């Protein structure tokens, strides 16, 4: 009798005791195979080289051997190298020239072309089309523009009886010339990002603003610009990260000259590591660039966050 009473109690849990059931949120490890291919390339092509680069930067290394551990020796050599310091300045100067221009011109184009007309669609395509060109084509085009005497710029200046500034050879203008070519090349992405942000602003807010007597300037300042603030920050960060990696344009247009004035960090790294085969020094310069980009992106992000509403 006692057994008969206890058996059902042990077979069925008492009221209030939770019966374990399949947890639908439990990880399913077979899903891992979907991310495995990406993870493989991410690890082998990004994570591993990152740490290998850090390791290399502490060694005296060339292509045939990794020599002895030198500690911060490579970094000390870097900061005693006037060319490297010049290349850091050049890179910042270039970023300062291009990033604000890309953001502002991209925004201006997006504001002008954010309409449903056929001509706006054609112009959007035209402005974006330069982005699909390779750096070789872009620099070729701009070298033709800048060529003294016969270049497009000289011809246009010639119409007014003036002499075109020599953007490639003038030490004061060379980086500006590269910046102009870069802005022309890269303007498509900021424009498209701004366009997509503008198209996400609900139409009824503009209607409310129209009923609130807002003129075009008030609408732009009080409705449009605050609505796309996030995209503005995004564009700035993307462009800072991209433009810090400047390489192809000066390599193909000026070879870093005149007098290293257009040599950016990446070109310095290339020269050091792959032309002078000083891999340790090149790796150290790469780490400096990595930290600079990281700081720039983080600073931008934090500054905007502190003001709120990112």
């Amino acid at each position, binding site marked *: 009798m006692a057994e008969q009473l206890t058996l059902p109690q042990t077979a069925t849990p008492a009221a209030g005791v939770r019966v374990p059931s399949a947890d639908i949120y439990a990880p399913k490890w077979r899903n891992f195979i979907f991310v495995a291919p990406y993870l493989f390339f991410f690890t082998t092509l990004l994570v591993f080289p990152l740490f290998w680069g850090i390791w290399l930067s502490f060694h005296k290394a060339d292509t045939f051997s990794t020599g002895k551990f030198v500690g911060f020796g490579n970094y000390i050599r870097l900061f005693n190298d006037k060319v490297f310091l010049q290349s850091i300045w050049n890179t910042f100067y270039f970023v300062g020239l291009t990033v604000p221009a890309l953001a502002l011109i991209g925004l201006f184009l997006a504001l002008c072309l954010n309409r449903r007309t056929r001509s706006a669609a054609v112009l959007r395509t035209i402005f974006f089309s330069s982005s699909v060109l390779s750096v070789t084509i872009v620099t070729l085009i701009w070298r033709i523009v800048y060529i003294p005497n016969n270049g497009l710029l000289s011809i246009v200046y010639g119409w007014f009886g003036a002499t075109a500034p020599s953007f490639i050879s003038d030490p004061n203008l060379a980086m500006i010339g590269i910046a102009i070519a870069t802005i022309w090349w890269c303007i498509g992405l900021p424009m498209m990002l701004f366009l997509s942000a503008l198209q996400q602003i609900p139409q*009824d*807010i503009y209607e409310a603003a129209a009923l*609130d*007597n*807002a003129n075009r300037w*008030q609408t732009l300042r009080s409705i449009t610009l*605050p609505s796309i*603030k996030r995209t503005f920050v995004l564009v700035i960060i993307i462009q800072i990260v991209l433009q810090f990696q400047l390489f192809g344009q000066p390599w193909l247009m000026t070879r870093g000259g005149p007098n290293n004035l257009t040599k950016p960090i990446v070109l310095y790294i290339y020269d050091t590591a792959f032309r002078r085969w000083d891999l340790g020094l090149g790796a150290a310069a790469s780490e400096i660039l990595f930290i600079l980009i990281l700081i720039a992106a983080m600073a931008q992000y934090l500054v905007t966050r502190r003001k709120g509403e990112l």
Partner: protein
Amino acid sequence: MTAHIEIKDVVKRFGAATVIDHLSLSIDPNEFMVFLGPSGCGKSTLLRMIAGLESVDEGTISINGQRIDNLPPGQRDIAMVFQSYALYPHMTVADNMAFGLRNIGISADVISARVTEAGRMLEIGHLMERKPGQLSGGQRQRVAIGRAIVKEPKAFLFDEPLSNLDAALRVRTRVELAQLRHRVKSTMIFVTHDQIEAMTLADRIVVMNNRKIEQIGTPMEIYSRPATRFVATFVGSPAMNFVDATLDTSGTNVTARFAGGVSVETDIGSNQLGDGKYTFGIRSEDVRVAPVGQGNAEGVVDVIERLGERTLVYARLGDGQQVVGSDAGNSPVAVGDRIGLAFDGRKSHLFNEAGHAWHARGV
């Protein structure tokens, strides 16, 4: 400040489609006018034309005798509350309300006073420094109304402002709007597809369908004496009963006969009607459920809806036509029961094939 709004013969086309077709309407000063109609009938388009958010292809719109259809929205001295509220997401509640006033150069003191007063009236004074994203749907709604009030406009336009609220809040806001209209003396136009909102808020209702006005009248006129079969169907829940009938016009009043030998003497004069086919119409509250043998028809109960204070009984007549009648809240009737139905001929309507209505004298 209030507005007498005169809409004359307006037409609106979107490409080849005409969405408003030669429509004329006069809205009196301080009147609460509701545009009621199904989706796509053109009611919102008409409101947006008054606001200036849609152009007018033909005809004119004027306020207090001054033509406004050629003015930009901001210069029409009207305020609009949008269905989606359309608050400026990056501005605080106070800035949302002040924006329109700042744009026309009103002094900061006046703006502050008006915003404070609107906040007090709408009980949103404690939310002034919040942004729309931090507010509930009902609070956003109030801010949107506040933004309209501070402008002290000649006319308020509401574009389905309650449709994004949950059921309980909708009822509460409806009551508050009804109170608000007595505090804020101004012409108000309210667009809705909800007949209860229309009936409870309106001084007059414009029932629209298919690009045109079907009827303009007070809520009770619209309900009791619907001008067309569409209005009779659209206004009132459940919709009016329609029964195919043959008419006997030999007496003073028309007698409607349904299949199965049912006859109902209406209170409609025989001499009013022309030739042609007619449909007999009667509201569910004018069809009482009665014991079998009493009343003028019999039917079998299909469905019962108990609403609490009354019971709606869906019964099938001998010829298969369904009629909704009403009974007391605690009606003992059950599905499948055979019941008697008493049609009150003094509350009946007749509709000709074109949908035009004749009403009994008693309604």
